[in-house]
């Protein structure tokens, strides 16, 4: 396994493999034929415009159409160009897609994926930069994938497409061009399986999406100071692999959680709450949560950077957790 491809290529391969494997799979969204961020580029050449459908600019009706198609036996992937725009389709996602399987007592299934590039990357401004994955923890019936590497992206997207539930698949814009090892052979990554991205014994650091990389960098720095951080990437926020995190905590007794989404009401809130509710005896210190401040994201890269958690913020949070703050 030493083929290194970009996150974009990994996602595109997942599309290709799943669309070849199952003719019920199709993609729709704005400019998916050209592939505005390249994840769907060229698919139309192989699968034709009937399965790679450019939609009008309407996120709500596009997600609605995916819901209807999914209920009647197809497996749509609908692309929402920026994660922020998911709020436009919130009704269809949170009130409809996630609820009909349950209230129909299983008579309906809604196997669909929302593929959605998102996150801050310096200079995109308030409504093209948010990480909103945490908004999908509250609504029922949804799954939420937040891959941090090309390998995870491919394996998770393939599972998401095969899953019988609506899955949100967030792709951080800063990760899209990054490269990573992806095997030639087919593989799947189950939804709900965390990945220990770095083994450590002193602190359990749970990091979401792009912050996995900041967490790993912070861990290296801390290692030089003799602190060994275990970095866990949950890979999906729903379902959440609590076991892996708990196992780590039983070793470290210290928990830090970092995400690029806003801290208030974010994923870290849910994880910290689980910790204090279920793992109380394994907490030797306050849980540290890191996330973006509760404000709109300003445009100027220097301001944006100050709003979102940095590598140094993570270092400091780990030190705080250990009572070694500077």
């Amino acid at each position, binding site marked *: 396994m030493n083929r290194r491809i970009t996150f974009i290529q990994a996602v595109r391969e997942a599309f290709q493999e799943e669309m070849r494997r199952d003719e019920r799979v199709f993609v729709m969204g704005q400019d998916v034929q050209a592939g505005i961020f390249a994840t769907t580029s060229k698919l139309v050449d192989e699968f034709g415009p009937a399965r790679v459908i450019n939609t009008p600019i309407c996120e709500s*009706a596009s997600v609605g159409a995916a819901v209807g198609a999914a*209920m009647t036996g197809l497996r749509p992937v609908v692309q929402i160009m920026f994660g922020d725009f998911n709020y436009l389709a919130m009704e269809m996602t949170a009130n409809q897609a996630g609820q009909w399987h349950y209230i*129909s*007592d299983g008579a309906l299934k809604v196997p669909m994926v929302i593929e959605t590039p998102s996150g801050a990357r310096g200079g995109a401004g308030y409504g093209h930069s948010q990480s909103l994955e945490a908004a999908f923890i509250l609504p029922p019936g949804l799954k939420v994938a937040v891959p941090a590497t090309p390998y995870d992206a491919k394996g998770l997207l393939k599972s998401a497409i095969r899953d019988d539930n609506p899955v949100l698949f967030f792709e951080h814009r800063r990760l899209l061009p990054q490269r990573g090892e992806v095997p030639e052979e087919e593989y799947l990554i189950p939804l709900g399986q965390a990945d220990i991205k770095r083994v450590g014994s002193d602190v359990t650091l749970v990091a979401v999406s792009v912050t996995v990389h900041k967490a790993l960098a912070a861990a290296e720095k801390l290692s030089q100071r003799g602190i060994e951080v275990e970095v866990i990437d949950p890979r999906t926020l729903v379902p959440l692999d609590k076991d892996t995190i708990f196992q780590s905590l039983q070793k470290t007794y210290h928990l830090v959680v970092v995400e690029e989404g806003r801290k208030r009401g974010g994923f870290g809130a849910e994880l910290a709450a689980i910790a204090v509710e279920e793992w109380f005896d394994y907490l030797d210190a306050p849980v540290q949560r890191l996330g973006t401040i509760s404000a709109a994201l300003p445009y100027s890269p220097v301001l944006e950077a100050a709003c979102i958690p940095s590598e140094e913020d993570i270092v400091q949070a780990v030190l705080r957790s250990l009572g070694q703050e500077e």
Partner: protein
Amino acid sequence: MQLEDDKRKELYRKMVTVRLLEKRVEQLVTAARIPCSGHFGLGQEAVGVGICGPLRYSDYIFGTHRGFAEYIGKGLTPREILSEYYGKATSLSRGRLGQHLLKPEIGIMPLPSSLGSEFGMAVGTALSTKLRGSDQVTVNLFGEGTAGQADFGPSLEMASLWQLPLVFVCNNNQYVELAHYRNVVATEDIAPRAGAYGIPYEIVDGNDIALVYGATAEAVSRARQGEGPMFLEFKTYRRCTHYTGDPGGYQPQEEIEIWVQKDPIDRCRATMMAEGMWTEADEQAMLASIADEIEAAVKFAEESPYPDPATIYEHIYA
């Protein structure tokens, strides 16, 4: 397309079933036997029943919150409806759906509690049949007030752009909750909005079951043959209040009277009798049989057990 005698009798029976069932449900809601409120369509039965006339079980319909007519029309039984309304374990959803009736096996698709959230879904089912190469048709029925919802235009756009087998049906019953529709709708007719998206449309008397059936049959057959979407607006009138909790009073009595004269059931019966295909004896026999069916359904629902609370943990994910 012509309404054949047998079909006319079938639709007539369904209209009467709807009317009697609605009355019965009203009593049951008022008596607090049924826990939800009831939304009825007194006087507009021909729309929901008539549009289902030309449909197959395999065709999809998205109905309304005032939808006894289309649900009976599409083939749901009073027993199925009442067991859902009662929230009993014997209902198709084991008590989960309530008024959000659903039966995908006969093409009855979700009734979202948010009005208009069916617009996108209906595009989706029509797109799905097109992609699957099936000749199923989707019918999306909604009120003139719901046509104000956000996804209305986009669904017209997509249906027109992709030439989907999708028939839009606007049931214009002239009221939107507690006010006349012109209080919140800018135009007298809704249908021309579809025209502006390149979708052919027709405005039809919604109180004449033959006209409703005929217009729908044509639209459905066009759609089935791949000739794309069509938009029908049926003019009718809601002679009851918005829902069981609404004391009414805002509909002028004279207005109601005018529409009593145009009652779709009376008109259908008169036509059948004039044509010699229906007798008073037929009428009495039918009424008795419908009453039996409804009472048996009430009894069934009443006697059915409530669902086991432990079932709430089932089907959380597929």
